């Protein structure tokens, strides 16, 4: 039996705005199993990053519960959170802005080690950082460099090393390669994959890049306007997306094959504002199969025979 590392129950995060509450995360139920790579895809503004920040307790949830290794961490306060930070860490999207330009690589990487008392003296810190750099395929001499002396790929390696420094069980990767070129992207993805095996990690990727999520994940969740609309094994969803939004989203992705073209406009219209989301199913205004029930009642995630869950009112989902 594989343990569940993270579980959320009816997790909500609303932001107060002048026009009313912005429902960024709206009742998300999610289970992440130990050792898996979970990929969350969705378009910008769908609440991916907010969901992750809420799970990490970087922002307070509005309601709902978060469990880490079966323990309810929803109401954890400062001191308890310190212990939490050693279990989960985060790699940011833009390596150029997530590193302090006035700190050397050594300073950046020694911070988490010192804060969590993981090393006793400078020498131990040095040894630990050398190990981290080696794991990232970098040299000890990079320790004295400043971020501006590193390339984009190297900066992101430092970002990953910083997340690894506290020896976490779970790493959230928020669009880790979207600021990098394709050739560098491959290197970083392979490095992350290798590190996962060496350190026995669980990964939670967030990305808008569907092809990327496909390559790295075991299971994926598709998010639309604060809710998960489809979740299940990656191959199942790729080969046969069921939710109308998933279908449209996947059909919008240009394939790198000149003989396969996108047909027409797979998804018409635009994402509605999360400040005033539609009453029933949030996808109803753009959905080609919309029925009267869709406009009134929010669909819940239903378990299908192949093990995936889909939130749609349509009968005989296939």
């Amino acid at each position: 039996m594989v343990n569940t590392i993270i579980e959320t129950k009816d997790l909500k995060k609303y932001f107060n705005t002048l026009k009313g509450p912005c429902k960024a995360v709206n009742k998300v139920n999610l289970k992440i199993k130990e050792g898996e790579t979970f990929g969350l895809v969705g378009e910008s503004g769908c609440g991916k990053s907010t969901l992750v920040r809420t799970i990490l307790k970087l922002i307070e949830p509005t309601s709902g519960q978060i469990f880490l290794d079966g323990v309810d961490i929803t109401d954890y306060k400062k001191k308890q959170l310190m212990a939490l930070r050693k279990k989960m860490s985060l790699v940011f999207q833009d390596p150029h802005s997530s590193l302090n330009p006035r700190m050397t690589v050594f300073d950046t990487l020694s911070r988490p080690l010192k804060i969590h008392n993981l090393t006793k003296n400078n020498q131990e810190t040095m040894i630990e950082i050398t190990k981290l750099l080696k794991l990232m395929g970098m040299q000890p001499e990079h320790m004295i460099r400043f971020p501006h002396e590193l390339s984009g790929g190297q900066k992101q390696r430092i970002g990953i090393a910083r997340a690894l420094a506290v020896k976490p069980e779970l790493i959230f990767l928020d669009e880790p390669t979207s600021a990098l070129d394709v050739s560098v992207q491959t290197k970083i993805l392979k490095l992350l994959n290798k590190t996962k095996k060496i350190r026995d990690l669980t990964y939670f990727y967030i990305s808008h890049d569907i092809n990327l999520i496909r390559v790295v994940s075991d299971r994926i969740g598709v998010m639309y306007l604060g809710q998960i609309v489809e979740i299940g094994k990656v191959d199942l969803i790729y080969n046969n997306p069921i939710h109308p939004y998933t279908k449209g989203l996947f059909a919008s992705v240009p394939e790198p094959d000149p003989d396969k073209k996108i047909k027409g406009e797979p998804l018409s219209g635009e994402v509605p504002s999360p400040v005033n989301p539609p009453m029933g199913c949030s996808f109803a205004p753009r959905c080609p199969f919309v029925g009267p029930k869709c406009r009134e009642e929010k669909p819940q995630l239903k378990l299908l025979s192949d093990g995936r869950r889909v939130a749609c009112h349509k009968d005989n989902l296939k």
Partner: protein
Amino acid sequence: MSKLLDINDLKVYFNTEEGVVKALAGVNFKIDKGSFHGLIGETGCGKSVTGLSILKLLDNNALIEGGKIIYKDENLLDKTEKQMQRDFRGNEIAMIFQDPGSSLNPVFTIQDQIQESVKMYKKASKQEYRNIVIEELKKVKLPDVEGLLDKYPHQLSGGMKQRVMIAMMLACNPNLLIADEPTTALDVSIQAQFLQVLKNLKEKFDMTVLYITHDLAVVSEICDYVSVMYAGRIVENVPVRELFKNPIHPYSYKLVHSVLGVKTLLENLEEIPGSVPRLIDPPSGCRFHPRCEEATDICKTKVPQLKKIGKNHYVACHRR
């Protein structure tokens, strides 16, 4: 098909505090009339500089060291600033940029911004201008056109802004459109809508497009012909099908095979060793040689020239 644009051995250098950056060191490609021409390469390879050079919109520290940009039998590099502004920019060649948010003026309404370009070439009454703007906005399939006219850019979404940019450029009826990463800031579903608009325009108005991007999937979706650029030089000019089926230059090969989606297993993705060279001090000979597995002595000393290896297929490599 006839040629619309012919770039011949274009060299552009930049003076910087650190030294002279040799951004373009011999760019060669031709664009046929009515074709969708893709220009691809990684960050910093000179794609955007090439686009800007065609319109002569480069910064003051840029030096055009040599080469020719022949547009309809005229060398644009010989034109003065005044001639460029009067005869070419907008009405012959137009450009749309990467970030639609920052290329529209936030304090003018959509109508003001679109009719500004019309006013430069056409005298008309207020109502006529309004009608022209409405026509243009309809061409890019924007919903509720009348309601849009008096809105400001911040009231529009990214996808809508990018369509307004196209409408603005269409208003002058250009023959060549240079699109510099127009969908990088957009979501995939909005990108699909945008590409659809471009395809329709091409069919209806027989427009020629130079599409600058790093996204090979988009290239396969809309381009007919592709120029692959590496560190300021074109390494391969190739029809789009050939690029995906049979990329010849070692860099093109690696690039195509590092695209997610061509390969669906992480282990099968190709890596390119090393990193992109700094163009202040570029490698001698073929600029790709330090990262190339097949490099020999000649690659280090002699610059490879583009040579024909198939129908419409040109490659700059000593080893091919």
